């Protein structure tokens, strides 16, 4: 396997060719903000939080979908990136109804974490207060679309790891939402195996276990990575 070397925030990293800048950053112990990225799933590059500056390229590129190249010089933090990332967070908060105080994921929410990471103490853009629904038809789980940020991790985990493809995105633009089956109640979708992987994958409190109340959801996000590697490498011990 060939190896490429590159610099991330001045740190030299050597990593297998074909890896992403995100993986290289992890190797270099550099934290890059992200929401749609989850180790073990395919990448979509949609949340745009992980955009980085690469010397010699006049476009910002997402770390999760950009392949490493020999000699790359990557900058993951700059005033501009910080400002743009903060705007992305403000847009996300304004787009849904994220009332942290009453959310199952309060304190264990990646959206909340990212807001702190980018220094968002308030949103400069007005909140939209969309009229969104919650679906509690499943015996074990619920989905509250108010808290959904459309990262599509649930869609991918269900399709790529569980193989059930219960979820997909329907409509378009601001009306996009996660749909189960033919826009049926989740509990009515035959394909759902109630495996709970979408609960673990969800970065916010949008998909949750029904017996969790405010601040009680503790998602096990590393479990998916473990599962993928377990299958690949036949290592069943964490």
């Amino acid at each position, binding site marked *: 396997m060939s190896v490429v070397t590159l610099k991330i925030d001045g740190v030299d990293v050597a990593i297998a060719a074909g890896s992403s800048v995100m993986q290289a950053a992890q190797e270099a112990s550099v934290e890059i903000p992200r929401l749609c990225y989850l180790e073990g799933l395919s990448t*979509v*590059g*949609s*949340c*745009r939080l992980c*955009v980085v500056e690469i010397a010699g390229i006049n*476009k*910002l*590129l*997402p770390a999760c*979908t*950009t*392949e490493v190249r020999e000699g790359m010089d990557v900058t993951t933090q700059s005033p501009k990136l910080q*400002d*743009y990332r903060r*705007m*992305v967070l403000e*847009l*996300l908060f*304004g*787009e849904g109804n994220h009332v942290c105080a009453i959310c199952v994921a309060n304190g264990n929410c990646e959206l909340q974490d990212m807001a702190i990471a980018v220094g968002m103490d308030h949103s*400069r*853009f*007005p909140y*939209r207060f969309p009229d969104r629904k919650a679906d509690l038809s499943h015996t074990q789980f619920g989905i509250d679309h108010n808290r959904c*940020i*459309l990262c599509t991790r649930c869609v991918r985990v269900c399709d790529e790891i569980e193989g059930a493809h219960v979820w997909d*995105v329907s*409509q*378009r*633009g*601001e*009306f*996009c939402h996660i749909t189960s089956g033919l826009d049926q109640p989740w509990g009515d979708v035959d394909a759902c195996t109630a495996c709970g992987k979408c609960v673990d994958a969800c970065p916010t409190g949008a998909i949750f276990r029904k017996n969790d109340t405010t601040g009680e959801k503790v998602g096990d996000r590393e479990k998916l990575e473990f599962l993928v590697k377990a299958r690949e490498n036949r290592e069943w011990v964490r």
Partner: protein
Amino acid sequence: MDINELHAMAEQEQLRRKPHRIRYCTSAGCVSAGAIAVKDGLKAAVKDGKLDNEIEISSVGCMGLCARGPLVKVEPSEIFYENVTAEQAASVVSTCHGGATDAKVSDLEHPFWKLQQPIVLENRGRINPERIEEYVQVGGYQSLHKALTDMTPAEVVEEMKKSGLRGRGGGGYPTGLKWETVAKMPPGQKYVICNADEGDPGAFMDRSILESDPHRVLEGMAIAGYAVGATHGFVYTRAEYPLAIKHLQKAIKQAKKFEFLGSQIFGSGFDFKVDIRIGAGAFVCGEETALMHSIQGARGNPRPRPPYPAASGLWDCPTLINNVESFANVAPIVRNGGDWYASIGTEDSKGTKVFALTGKITNTGLIEVPMGTTLRQIVEEMGDGVPDGGVVKAVQTGGPSGGCVPADLLDTPVEYKSLLKLGAIMGSGGMIVMDEGTKMVEIARFYMEFCREETCGKCVPCRTGTVQLYELLDKISKGQGTAKDVEQLEKLSYMVKEMSLCGLGQTAPNPILSTLDYFKQEYLDLLQSPADLNGNKIEATANAPSA
């Protein structure tokens, strides 16, 4: 089919022709102006005068001067008539034998015609788009023959590179380079896609080409297939263009029948087939990665590039995507050589460009001008300016991805570089003239509303940034904005531009940024007067129900 048969086919068509032909335009513009009644009138006159053996009444595609339809052309005298009525039809027929007509003759010396240089539109008014024989009669498929029998694929690519042709869909990427990249990919399954998902509101160049001269596009695609090593092509077009689809379907059928498409074309080892894929109402599918997802039956969500389609496109195979106008330029380039094409236009931009000239302009229509023609020549000379003595305020190019060029910069030549420098873009060819009465903030709001409705929703900046941009513009245009809102508008515009995943989001703020550049005062004039300002005054005051 070999070259002798091709020539024979052209000759036969020539022999079949009657001494006189009267061509009427069947494009949407003329049809809704009454072209069908005119056709009926022409046919009746021929029948009544028992002139069936001498005069042929035949349809042609768009002839360009849409403002003055229905248009009728008489051959071989090559006289154009404008605003023809059904009542005038008989007298137009009589001109074939020296009669007189009161139908208005188009002034072919007018700059509208004079400044044009038709290459893409060279068959305008000359062929019936539904008859392959007429296309062959004007030299059609000879370029394909030349490429397949006299040139290697590498030589075809070389001519394309020499021509300097740049992508006519708006991006302006050098076409030859794109072809070369795909050609250099390892052999195996490759695809050619013709992007006919013309979605910019105010643009109808591609529709016109497909409706009027579909074989030219097929010929260009087949040559491209040969050059890059692809055997399968797709035309992805809009369901909103039923006539274009019909003509294209017919053209494919005819081309197959005469073996211009299929296996071992012109006895060479080259096979090529073309399928049509019809969109279902999504502007974003004009973006190449979204378009490919759509061809594969998925939601039209774009994906990050690289990998570019040239390396990994349709079904992960190397794929060449060009738009309709780019493909329509291929046959003439192969016929006359890349150097010939490169001799037209400017250093930065070679060849010609087709524009749909619309808005507050006297001569709306479709024109093809050499690159380097100035906007002033197009708007004032060719277009005869704003009707009723109005004054041009700005010209918008590039639709929702483009910008406005203010009247005092109209001497700018039409070139990729020059337009980009002004914050506008070449775009696919929509050119909308705005007069003094046009409110620029309103225009920016209109385009943002478009983008808000057309964003696919995949990436955050575009999905929700366009909503916030729209709301800001709406607030400002209603007179409720503050200086802070204008500042916010500009900041967010840059963010959406730099952070969005695909071209739609990356260009969506352009109409805002260009109007802020040239017409900032119009924004400021709309702000709340300082008297209203108490910090940011709340917009909705108490509104309790009357209990």
